[in-house]
């Protein structure tokens, strides 16, 4: 249900402008310019990166079902459109509360970190208070375990107080959810001599589709992050789970090397030469950097007048195709400059070779 709703609403936004796989990339949170720009231009930011564990085969199977149910029609170019039935179905479920919890673009990285830290710290503290230290941790990612270890050493002298308070905050927070949601959340937790339910078990127990379970959990976590963010004073311990977030760069490794060199004031040409890469590759990196970096010094590469000219052309053509825009602007403005402006302004470019990264 949740998954179907999300896919169908993506289709209704994309219309025939994007293929089905763009939805897959959006939900997985693919770090490409194309996907991020899709999220912005089609107003699907809230769905970005909400299903990192989604498998292609499950996605395909579910799409196939939607086509079989006559809610979607697939075109030859793998774009999809809603049938009338699909349109009605979408309308009927418009009020779905859970979907409104999602805030992917803001939370897609935080949500996983928050959830995994919470799971592991609860397991650690509840076992430690029972003097049981030989348990198999539910999370074994070093980036999570090292944080939990640090917390554990600080909290150890006050375990009972900590557990009581954390219980209080969770209890308070879970009041904001439906009974079933709260149940799913609590059933997923692991403690002393008690392991949380797997997603299969939750699906079975609550009569959900397996594919919906991770989404339902993520939706709740997003909602929690929002509530905690609004009321840090009410949830001091939970707010602490969101501090010292691992610094994860959103750009590719190669691009981040380019970024380092740019920051040392090397020019694109010099970087290309030093790294034995084509100038165009460096340009691709710079567009990628511009997309994610809010402080990208656009003026260094495109004068304000030129920016205005490019924006005007983009609006005029409304196709956002690079070629069309290029024809509308002065000859001195390059493709690279156009791409930079579009990246900074978060406007999607269609076609052309932007999907390379």
């Amino acid at each position, binding site marked *: 249900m949740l998954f179907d709703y999300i896919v169908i609403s993506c289709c209704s936004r994309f219309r025939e402008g994007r293929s089905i796989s763009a939805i897959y990339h959006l939900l997985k949170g693919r770090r490409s310019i194309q996907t991020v720009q899709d999220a912005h231009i089609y107003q699907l930011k809230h769905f970005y990166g909400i299903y990192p564990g989604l498998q292609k085969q499950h996605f395909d199977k579910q799409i196939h079902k939607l086509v079989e149910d006559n809610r979607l029609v697939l075109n030859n170019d793998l774009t999809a459109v809603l049938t009338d039935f699909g349109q009605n179905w979408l309308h009927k479920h418009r009020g779905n509360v859970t979907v409104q919890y999602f805030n992917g673009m803001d939370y897609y990285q935080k949500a996983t970190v928050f959830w995994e830290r919470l799971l592991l710290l609860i397991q650690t503290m509840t076992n430690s208070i029972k003097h049981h230290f030989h348990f198999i941790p539910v999370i074994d990612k070093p980036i999570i375990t090292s944080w939990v270890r640090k917390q554990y050493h600080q909290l150890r002298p006050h375990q009972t107080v900590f557990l009581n308070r954390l219980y209080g905050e969770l209890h308070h927070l879970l009041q904001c959810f439906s009974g079933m949601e709260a149940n799913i*959340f609590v*059933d997923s937790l692991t*403690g002393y001599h008690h392991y949380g339910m797997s997603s299969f078990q939750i699906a079975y127990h609550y009569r959900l589709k397996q594919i919906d379970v991770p989404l339902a959990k993520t939706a709740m976590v997003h909602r929690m992050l929002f509530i905690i963010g609004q009321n840090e004073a009410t949830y001091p311990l939970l707010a602490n789970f969101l501090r010292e977030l691992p610094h994860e760069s959103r750009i590719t490794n190669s691009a981040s090397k380019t970024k380092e060199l740019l920051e040392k004031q090397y020019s694109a040409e010099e970087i290309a030469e030093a790294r034995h890469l084509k100038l165009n590759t460096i340009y691709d990196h710079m567009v990628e950097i511009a997309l994610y970096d809010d402080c990208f010094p656009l003026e260094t590469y495109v004068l304000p007048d030129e920016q205005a000219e490019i924006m005007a052309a983009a609006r005029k053509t409304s196709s956002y195709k690079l070629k069309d825009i290029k024809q509308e602007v002065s000859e001195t403005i390059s493709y690279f400059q156009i791409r930079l402006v579009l990246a900074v302004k978060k406007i999607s470019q269609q076609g052309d070779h932007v999907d390379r990264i």
Partner: protein
Amino acid sequence: MLIEYKLKEQLRDQFHISSFRPGQEEIINDVMAGHDVLAILPTGSGKSLCYQLPASLFKGVTLVVSPLISLMEDQVKQLKAIGFKKAVALNSFMNPREKRHVLQQLEQYKLIYLSPEILQHSDIIRRFKRIAIDLFVIDEAHCISQWGHEFRPDYLRLGDVLKQLNDPPVMALSATATQEVQRDIITSLNRSDVVSHIYPMDRENITFTVKKVDDDRQKQDILLKLLKRYRVPTLIYFSSKQKTEDIAAFLSENLPSHRIAFYHGGMDQLDRIAIQQQFMNDQLDIICCTSAFGMGINKQDIRLVLHYHFPLQMESFLQEIGRAGRDGKSSISLLMYAPGDEALPRSMIHHELPPVEDLRHIFSVLYHLYSHNPKLPPTDEILVLLGINEIQWRFLHYQMEKHGMIKDNRIVFHQEDWRPIIRDIKQIIITRYTLKERKLDDIISWIHEEKCLRDHLYKGFQDNYKPPLYACCSNCGFSFNDWEPEQTQAGQDAFSWETKLKTLFFIGDHSNETK
């Protein structure tokens, strides 16, 4: 005396175990004395301790070759859980950064688990050459043997690896090895002075039963009837992942009081750990699983091991039923058979070897590749080009390398050589087929045995076996009417989330204030 004291102390402090189980001490003493050791110990007798304890005392590193990544990861997790942190699993599926990190500080570890495949990388060998290796362990050593049940070409190359690593002391471990296999292991490692510790693996507290039925429906009826009557820790083995899910759903539907889950290698790691640990903690009654479940699981009170499908050979069967009744109490193995059940294992055999009838075609594609560029393309491309799966390609690659058709990842072509070699390889494949078919026939003939099942089961593996403690087998007059194991008490699951949250955090429970 000093050594003995030291071993016991380490056993207690590091492994939290008060005394050795039969066989462990003798084996460990030989390992500590630097001997090459072959140890055949039944499942559940604490095989891993035989190298883990020495490894924790050795100055240098102990390498453990293990066939399954999930198995290595389980072992490392369990070691870390008891505070043995200097253990790591090294395999081809690690991300490059992690791998580099581990490789840069190999000396930091006491125990390194690795796959036989990764030992084929020359850069890895180079790194291991630089450190002191005190012990080289080959777990599931029957994989070395062509008679073993999981023939893996890279296991055969371990003899070479040992030479390259300057011949460290070796320990070969297995739970099930016939005499043929034992001989094969010793020969292929080229260690004639090996000290053998062979322990009988018959289980005197397990009763064997075979139930012949007409079809799948009847199997499901029997499952229902049996499990309705007995709520005890139960494993049900299947050959297909899908079927574990289907039957788990079917049983859940019809046995609302039981807690049931499925388990197979296609699940993600977090879910697999959750199911394993729930079963260990008595949060689950029944697990529908493939052979992926069980290794590294040490639950004492599994009462029933059922086979919905039968495995490809006796050795696997023995390993699977060996998980029952480790506490010594009466436990039952039940294998269900319906006419036509042979089809599934036969088709599985065909997935494990390159198809003989396509061999000509396969080699002509390889020749074609060679004439373009002798360098082999990446594996996933090869699989598509040749139309075979990864297991089949692994086999073929090994044979081609052995016969000089592949060298340094390049195809070597000599017209006069290829024809006879292809004939040889074809013959080897046919021999392997015959062997696998024979193994399959063995288990089928056991299923159809009309005399004692226990006698038939063990006589291929050892000279003698202990008389059964409880009923012997379905052919010696066992009936479920006489079986009354202790049952699991009904749990109460239908609490509100608030109660569950309170329980989890011990709210209102004043017995655990910190001291």
